[in-house]
């Protein structure tokens, strides 16, 4: 497995990508801290701290952007600067692409877990169900990676692909109604609930916390289904592009 020998370096690249770390780790940490300061002592109707909800949203929201580094590496290694070198190298490029994707996702999940740890042990909030939350984080991060890979493969201009991935992230946050309420009609309702991975995963964690496991699994599985579908799409477009 020649691809395996590259994984160490993929990981190193991710860890040393300081700008990425700044945006996906430091910024959320600062924001969590600020939110915890702002919302300290406030509770919602059920008596849970308001901050819990926010922290959950934040952790999952940042997963939406987790695919960007995967995208950059893929573009750099397989489509632009390193393209020729990789092309003549005697190893399986599809597997390499996949390994970048997997490690990018794992890294993103790790960042998410760091955020959870930070909010629990420093900011003093309590995560009800770690395993279930991490599962959802993983789903979100994989989804984001897949979406980004699809963008990279489908759109010729990388800059445009980058913009699209930002729109994917910001768009779903907006559609979830986190900035301001969305207009009330069927399309926006759907995109603000079952058509939105962010709301779905938030809903799944929330339902899991309330003990409503049927609902929780339903919502999580919708995300999973989206992942499976998009994964197939990704393989089709990816093969086309890698040839």
């Amino acid at each position: 497995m020649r691809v395996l020998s590259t994984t160490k370096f993929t990981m190193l690249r991710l860890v040393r990508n300081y700008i990425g770390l700044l945006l996906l780790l430091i910024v959320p940490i600062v924001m969590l801290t600020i939110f915890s300061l702002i919302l300290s002592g406030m509770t919602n109707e059920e008596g849970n701290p308001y901050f819990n909800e926010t922290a959950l949203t934040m952790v999952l929201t940042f997963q939406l952007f987790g695919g960007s580094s995967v995208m950059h590496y893929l573009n750099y290694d397989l489509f632009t600067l390193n393209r020729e070198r990789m092309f003549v190298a005697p190893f399986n490029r599809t597997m390499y692409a996949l390994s970048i994707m997997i490690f990018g996702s794992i890294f993103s999940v790790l960042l998410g877990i760091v955020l959870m740890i930070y909010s629990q042990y420093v900011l003093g909030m309590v995560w009800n169900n770690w395993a279930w939350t991490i599962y959802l984080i993983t789903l979100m991060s994989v989804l984001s990676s897949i979406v980004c890979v699809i963008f990279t493969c489908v759109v010729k201009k990388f800059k445009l692909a980058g913009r699209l991935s930002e729109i994917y992230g910001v768009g779903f946050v907006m559609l979830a109604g986190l900035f301001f309420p969305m207009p009330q009609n069927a399309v926006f309702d759907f995109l603000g609930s079952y058509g939105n991975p962010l709301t779905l995963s938030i809903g799944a964690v929330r339902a899991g916390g309330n003990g409503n496991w049927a609902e929780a699994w339903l919502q999580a599985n919708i995300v999973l289904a989206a992942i499976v579908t998009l994964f197939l799409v990704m393989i089709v477009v990816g093969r086309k592009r890698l040839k």
Partner: protein
Amino acid sequence: MTIFYFTLKRSFGSLTNLIFLTLAPIACIFFPAGEAWPALPYGYQYFGIIILFVAIRLTQIIIEDRARGVIKRLSVAPIRYFHYLSQNLFAYFVILILQCAIVIVGGLLRGQELYQPFALFTLYLSFSFTALAIALAWISIFRNKDIAFLVYMSLIFLMVLMGGIMMPLEMFPDLMKRIAVILPTFWFAEGLNWVVYGRQTSNFMLINGVLWLYTLVFLVLGSTRKMQ
């Protein structure tokens, strides 16, 4: 006026910029109104954020000039750095004025409740210049425009959040409320509040004055000539 003219031309040069510069304010017009908060429609509450983004986007030209060596070239030309800077800033300001005008006029045409449109326009203008000055100071620290932009994005988010544009300040604990005052975004939010509830013109003048003070400070900080 060569530099002014060409800065305008370059700002509208690329398609993405064109879309960004025209669509962003137009989109703002169509944002819905909030229920309890904010009193202004969301688009008008959040237009400050857009101004901040537009400002850093526009000032990219300066950082590009620096990276490409145009500044070096100009420093050998019979022209002072002050001219270069002022004409650039003037061009950006013209663009921002246009955007503000689009937002206000569009809102009036669409029948959005803007309370005191003229005051709102003034506030936007003042804040535009503050945003430009901040962006100018910001890019003077960086060499790479992408990094400058990305880091600034997170900074904007924090400023906006802590300054009370995204969440009402009343929710904040005392300490946060006091820290908020340091940020220019707080004064912008104050201004928005005044547009809705304010009566005393002197207060509004004061708010604008503070924004102009910020502008001066950041202009001074950002006006250093850097070659690389």
